[in-house]
C-alpha cells in the first residue's frame, strides 16, 4: 500500500505544476526530460554501470562460490565479511585507496587509469563489485548445498569432464538464485546514488543524481522533473528484471 502510494505520488508530482494557489495537470516535465541531453546521458551511464557492476559481481561470485563450495563455515564467513558493510563506507574506502594521491598510488607509484571520479564510472563499478560479489556468492553457496556436491560426484564417476559438470550440474542449480540476486543488485545500482556521489564523476550523472540535482536547480518545476526521472529509473529496473528472467529461462522451459 505504501509503495503504491509512493508510486502514485511520484506519478502525480510528475504531471502537476503548482501555479499560484492551484495546481495544473501538464506533461511539461516529461517533455523537458525527454529533450534534455543530460538526461539521455544519465540513462546510458546508469544502465551501463548497472549492467557492468552486475555482470562482474556475478562472475566474481561464481568464482568465489566454486572455490569455497567444499570449504567449511570459517572460510565462507570470511568471504561474506563485506556483506554487512554499508555501501557508503565502501565508497569512503575506495576514495582513500584509489583517488589521486591515495594509498594505491603511494604504494605503486602511479595508477594507469583514473579510478575515482572518472567519466567511465570505473570506481563506481569497483565499489559495487566489492560489495555485491560476496552477497551473490552467499546466495550461490546456499543453493549449491550438499545435494549438488553429490550430483557432481555422480557425474564425475560417469566420466563427465570439469566443463561438463559445470554446464550440466552446477549451472542449472545456481541459475535461478543467481538471476534473482542479479536482479536485486541491478535494481539497487540503478536507483542508488550515495556511491556515485562519493566516487562518481561530475558528468555524466546517474539517474538518481540527475533527479536530485533537478530540485536544486529549480525548486518548483524541479520536483516534477525529479519525479519523472525517478519513475524512469523504476521502469528501467522493472524492464531489466523482466529481461533477466526471460533470458535466464532454459530453452526447455525450466
Amino acid at each position, binding site marked *: 500500500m505504501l509503495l503504491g502510494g509512493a508510486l502514485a505520488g511520484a506519478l502525480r508530482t510528475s504531471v502537476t505544476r503548482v501555479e499560484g494557489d492551484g495546481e495544473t495537470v501538464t506533461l511539461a516535465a516529461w517533455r523537458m526530460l525527454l529533450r534534455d541531453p543530460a538526461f539521455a546521458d544519465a540513462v546510458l551511464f546508469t544502465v551501463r554501470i548497472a549492467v557492468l557492476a552486475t555482470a562482474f559481481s556475478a562472475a566474481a561470485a561464481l568464482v568465489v562460490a566454486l572455490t569455497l563450495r567444499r570449504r567449511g563455515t570459517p572460510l565462507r564467513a570470511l568471504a561474506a565479511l563485506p556483506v554487512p558493510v554499508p555501501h557508503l563506507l565502501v565508497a*569512503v574506502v575506495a576514495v582513500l585507496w584509489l583517488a589521486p594521491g591515495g594509498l594505491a598510488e603511494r604504494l605503486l607509484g602511479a595508477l594507469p587509469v583514473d579510478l575515482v571520479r572518472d567519466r567511465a564510472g570505473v570506481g563506481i563499478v569497483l565499489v559495487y563489485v566489492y560489495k555485491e560479489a560476496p552477497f551473490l556468492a552467499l546466495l550461490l553457496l546456499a543453493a549449491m548445498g550438499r545435494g549438488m556436491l553429490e550430483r557432481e560426484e555422480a557425474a564425475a564417476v560417469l566420466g563427465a569432464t570439469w566443463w561438463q559438470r559445470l554446464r550440466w550440474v552446477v549451472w542449472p542449480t545456481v541459475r535461478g538464485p543467481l538471476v534473482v540476486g542479479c536482479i536485486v543488485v541491478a535494481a539497487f545500482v540503478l536507483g542508488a*546514488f550515495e556511491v556515485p556521489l562519493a566516487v562518481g564523476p561530475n558528468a555524466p550523472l546517474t539517474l538518481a543524481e540527475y533527479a536530485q540535482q533537478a530540485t536544486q536547480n529549480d525548486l518548483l518545476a524541479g520536483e516534477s522533473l525529479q519525479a519523472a526521472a525517478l519513475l524512469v529509473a523504476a521502469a528501467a529496473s522493472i524492464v531489466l528484471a523482466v529481461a533477466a528472467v526471460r533470458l535466464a529461462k532454459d530453452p526447455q522451459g525450466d
Partner: protein
Amino acid sequence: MTERSSPRRLVAAALAAAFALPIGVLVVRAFADAWRAPAVIPQRWGLRGLREALSGMALDAFANSLIVAIVVTVAAVALAWPAARVLGERRLRHPALPFLVLALPLLVPSYATGAGLTQWFLRLGLVDALPGLALAHLVIVLPYVTVVLLSAFGPPVTALEEMACSQGLTALQRLRWVTLPAVRPSLAAAVLLGFLVSWSEYGSSLAVGGGRPMLPLVLLPFVRSDPQVASALSLLFLAPAVAALVLAARAARSPL
C-alpha cells in the same frame, strides 16, 4: 595434512586480506592528523577527525539512525512473519502475484519511493519526523525481511507445531518452545538484514527526512571535503553494523 591445509590457508589469507586491508585503512586515516602524499605512513597522529566528527550533528544523526533502524526492524519482522508463514507453507494456490507485489519495492529505487511518499507525508505532517522516516524505511526493509524469513517456514516446522499441539501446548507455549527455536537462524538473519538495510538507507532518508540528520546523510559531504572526518564517521557508521552481525550470529546459535 600440510599439503591439504595449504590451499585452505591461502584462500583464508586472501579473503581476510581483501576485507581487513581496505577497512583497516579507515582506522589509520581516522587518527592521522597529517598524511600528505607520497608518504605511506601518516606524519602526525591525533584526534582531530574524531573531534570534528563528534562536534557536529553526528551524535544526533547516530541516534536518529539507530532509533529508526531498530523500530523498522521490529515492525518489519512483525509484519513479515504472517506473510512469510503463508508463503513458506505454500498455503496460497497462486503465490506468484502476492510474492511479486511483496518484492516490488526491491526493484523501485528507494529515492523514488521516498520522493513519492513525501507528497503524502507533507499532508500528514510526517516529513522531517522520525515516524515518517520509519515508514519510508519500512517499505524498503519489509521485502528483504520477508524473503529471508519465508525460507524458515515449511512442512518440518508445521509438523513440529502439530506435535506440540497434540501434546497440549498452548499457542504461546508453542511459539516459545517450538516455533521460535525452529526458525531461529532465519529469524536472526532477517533481523540482521532488516537492521542493516535501514541503517545504511540513504535515498529515502534524503527524500523524507527534510533535513533531519541521519548518519549516511551527515557522512557523505565529508567524503570529498575531509577524508579524515569521513573516516572517523565511517567507524561510527560501521560499529552498530558489526555489533548487529555479532548479535545475530550468537542468536542464531544459542536458544532465544
